[in-house]
């Protein structure tokens, strides 16, 4: 490892690989650091299809999708290390970020003009979703179970209850069943499934797996290992209804209850955080509030499609390139993106009219036949439906952004 780079990419998942490839193509001096023993991030453990439909125009498994990026990355001879965990990033000056990295050989400091932070997300754990009871063996997050089963070939259990019906929970239910485990229930807090209808059909209905809507796992019991869970109905305020408890015998609980951007590493650098996304506040260049620190992928906002993750990685690389070329991003007139009706989150938070900007957003509640409106710039996009589980992606051209004064509102309204 040398001691100074134009850009250091933290994380070797799809966002980080895409960012490093693009940065190299732009002629930058790049280093990529990955803490696991292998490159590729989450898709390495995803043996199911559903990856790359937009990017490659083909339906690939996660493993196939990421293989293409890893091959390209290797082919370009980009300097990188696995088993290299970045502990923190400190911004010493506009031009100098210092990263502390732990490797098998010891502790290193690396300096960089810019950093692209692509460390992904962490999974929500039992205490965060209000599960009480015993902390016994047999409780795993979906990602842990998937890595055990699909990378290391070890089944996490036989009688399984899954918490959460997002696509992750649904896909895991199918994988467990196909591998011979008995999935006794998928338990969902909301009155509707969190994942795509096609996944409810292919992953649960195909196998007769019961889906408990408006229910929560409130307690896990067991001696050394999970022996049973208590499932309780919830009311419209999502509060457990006393007297509706039901016992399900099982030996394993899988938590598929959502992801949160993993920011611990750049918190010390002082990036501002958006409570709605759980990720940093960014501008059109995907630059955080700390100049020269860019962010992409699930560390920015939780993405369900890897294609968008890759797009963000490439965008962050372009941002870092502008920064290095010009000695920092020019101070521009930023328009604040304001969340209007039925918009729960939206990134980037500040838009400039120097570049076309892709906005990624999620709605609060499902609706049909709606219009996505940006009233200040007179833009409207008709959508047949919106759902909280599916990210809305829309491109704003720089001429459109230029039409706005200080703010651009984004709202979802009925189609009159």
């Amino acid at each position, binding site marked *: 490892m040398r001691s100074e780079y134009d850009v250091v990419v933290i994380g070797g998942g799809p966002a980080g690989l895409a960012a490093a490839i693009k940065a190299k193509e732009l002629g930058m001096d790049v280093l990529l650091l990955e803490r696991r023993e*292998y490159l590729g991030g989450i898709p390495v453990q995803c043996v199911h299809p559903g990856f790359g439909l937009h990017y490659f125009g083909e339906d690939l498994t996660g493993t196939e999708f990421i*293989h293409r990026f890893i091959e390209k990355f290797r082919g370009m001879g980009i300097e990188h290390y696995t088993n290299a965990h970045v502990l923190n990033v400190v911004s010493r000056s506009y031009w100098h970020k210092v990263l502390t990295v732990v490797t098998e050989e010891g502790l290193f400091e690396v300096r960089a003009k810019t950093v692209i932070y692509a460390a992904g997300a962490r999974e929500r754990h039992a205490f965060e979703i209000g599960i009480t009871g015993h902390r016994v063996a047999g409780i795993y997050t979906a990602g842990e179970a998937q890595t055990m089963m699909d990378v*290391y*070939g070890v089944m996490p259990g036989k009688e399984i209850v899954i918490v959460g019906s997002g696509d992750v929970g649904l896909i895991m239910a199918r994988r467990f069943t*196909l591998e*011979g485990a008995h999935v006794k229930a998928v338990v969902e807090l909301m009155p509707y499934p969190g994942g795509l209808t096609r996944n*409810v059909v292919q992953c649960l209905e*195909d196998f007769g797996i019961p889906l408990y809507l408006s229910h929560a796992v409130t307690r896990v019991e067991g001696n050394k290992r999970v022996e049973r869970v208590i499932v309780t109905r919830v009311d419209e305020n999502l509060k457990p209804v006393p007297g509706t408890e039901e016992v399900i015998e099982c030996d394993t609980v899988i938590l598929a209850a959502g992801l949160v951007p993993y920011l611990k590493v750049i918190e010390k650098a002082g990036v501002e955080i958006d409570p709605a996304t759980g990720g940093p506040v960014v501008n059109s260049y995907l630059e955080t509030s700390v100049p020269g620190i860019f962010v992409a992928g699930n560390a920015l906002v939780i993405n369900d499609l890897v294609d968008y993750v890759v797009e963000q990685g490439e965008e962050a690389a372009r941002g870092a390139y502008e920064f290095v070329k010009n000695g920092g991003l020019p101070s521009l007139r930023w328009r604040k993106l304001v969340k209007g009706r039925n918009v729960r989150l939206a990134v980037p938070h500040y838009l400039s009219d120097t570049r076309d900007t892709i906005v990624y957003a999620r709605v609060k509640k499902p609706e049909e036949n709606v219009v996505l409106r940006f009233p200040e710039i007179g833009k409207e996009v008709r959508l047949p439906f919106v759902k909280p589980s599916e990210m809305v992606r829309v491109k704003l051209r720089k001429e459109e952004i230029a039409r706005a004064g200080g703010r651009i509102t984004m709202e979802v309204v009925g189609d009159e």
Partner: protein
Amino acid sequence: MSEVKRFKLTCIVCPLGCEIEVEMEGDRITSVRGYTCPRGKGYAVQEVTEPKRTVMSVVPVKGGKFPTVAVKSDKPVPKELVPRIMRLLADVEVEAPVHVGQVIVENVLGTGANIVATREA
């Protein structure tokens, strides 16, 4: 006249998830409604006559970086054969090196589909 059967399906081809209704008289499909595109119609007809799915799994690998290699069927196979294919795969072991796309089981259970590797090992 033979009996009229109605099937309600959710299309699984793309994320839209259209609700499709198929009517059959005996073995003959008399109407398909509710699809938004031809792929959906094709899926619905296939689903009521001979439902198919892509199989995915992992098989043990000797001498690789990891103990397993991920595999899938290179085209959809009859749904009712899926459990048998999974059991068959449980007894397969391969040796490293394995590259993406390499055939692991040829013409699995005579379906015309190959089981291919989707990860390197």
